[in-house]
């Protein structure tokens, strides 16, 4: 309680100061948008956000796939929740997920494809896949022991791995790191996005499960 006496005025001042800054901010003299428009033809995709995410600033996205993977590694290293009891899903959830999961997967595929030219893309598609995975997990579905080792891990690193492989490959054939040659830029971007979508979906679902699949059963 002692603290609230000075905290509130301080935060109010911060709010006012930041608000004033926002209002008084000048518009940049040279913005990026004009430059983006000039380069859109060689970017491979016509959706500017996807072009920025996957091409102009693709390196950010590469590292971000790393962030996602690292968070999952952290979740797994904590070892999950020991006495996490699964309740039976109940009829409503069971039937609903049966109906929803295929639709989610379909919509995810659509979003991935349409992301090249309209709003959408790997992250939106990936989060839908993740949602489908969460629904399945809620219904009591678990990944088979046969797939919980190397295949699952491979799926999880697919996004980051594809990025690194593509970037390095382009480097080896004489370009710069992540410099997509204009004629195949679209294909490369879609390939990376597809890999990223699968990884994001799998990672989100795995985060929801919390513990290492297969390891928890022991």
């Amino acid at each position: 309680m002692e603290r609230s006496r000075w905290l509130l005025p301080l935060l109010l001042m911060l709010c006012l100061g930041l608000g004033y800054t926002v209002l008084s901010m000048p518009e940049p003299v040279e913005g990026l948008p004009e430059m983006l428009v000039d380069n859109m033809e060689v970017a491979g995709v016509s959706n500017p956000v996807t072009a920025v995410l996957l091409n102009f600033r693709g390196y950010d996205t590469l590292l971000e796939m790393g962030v996602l993977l690292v968070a999952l590694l952290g979740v797994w290293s904590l070892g999950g929740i020991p006495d996490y009891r699964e309740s039976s899903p109940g009829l409503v959830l069971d039937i609903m997920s049966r109906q929803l999961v295929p639709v989610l997967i379909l919509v995810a595929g659509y979003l991935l494809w349409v992301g090249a030219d309209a709003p959408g893309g790997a992250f939106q598609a990936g989060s839908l896949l993740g949602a489908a995975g969460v629904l399945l997990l809620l219904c009591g579905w678990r990944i088979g022991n046969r797939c919980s080792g190397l295949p699952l891990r491979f799926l999880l690193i697919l996004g980051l791995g594809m990025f690194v492989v593509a970037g390095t490959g382009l480097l080896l054939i004489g370009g710069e790191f992540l410099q997509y040659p204009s004629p195949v830029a679209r294909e490369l971007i879609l390939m990376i996005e597809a890999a990223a979508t699968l990884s994001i979906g799998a990672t989100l679902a795995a985060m929801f499960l919390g513990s290492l699949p297969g390891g928890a059963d022991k």
Partner: protein
Amino acid sequence: MSYVYLYALLGVSLFVLGLNALIVHAHLLRKILAVNVMSTGVFLVLVALSSRNEEVLPDPVPHAMVITGIVVSVSATALALILMLKVNRATGKNELPDRGRD
């Protein structure tokens, strides 16, 4: 003055509100939510200010930054939540011990 600035100001207010909640509340779940509110505020500022000029299309770069930011924030929240559960498991409390907090 357009609506853009209204959104940007809203973003700033969310940032400060989240900061307040982060400091005031002891419960870890509230702290985690507070951090999420703060990040939403930052994202709102980023996106709102990108369409200040109504004659041209909004700048896509902040949009891409926000998508990256959202993924980062989702990852961090996932880690924070499991850590919270673990802290609860280990100490029986949903709060951090008061030591060191000023």
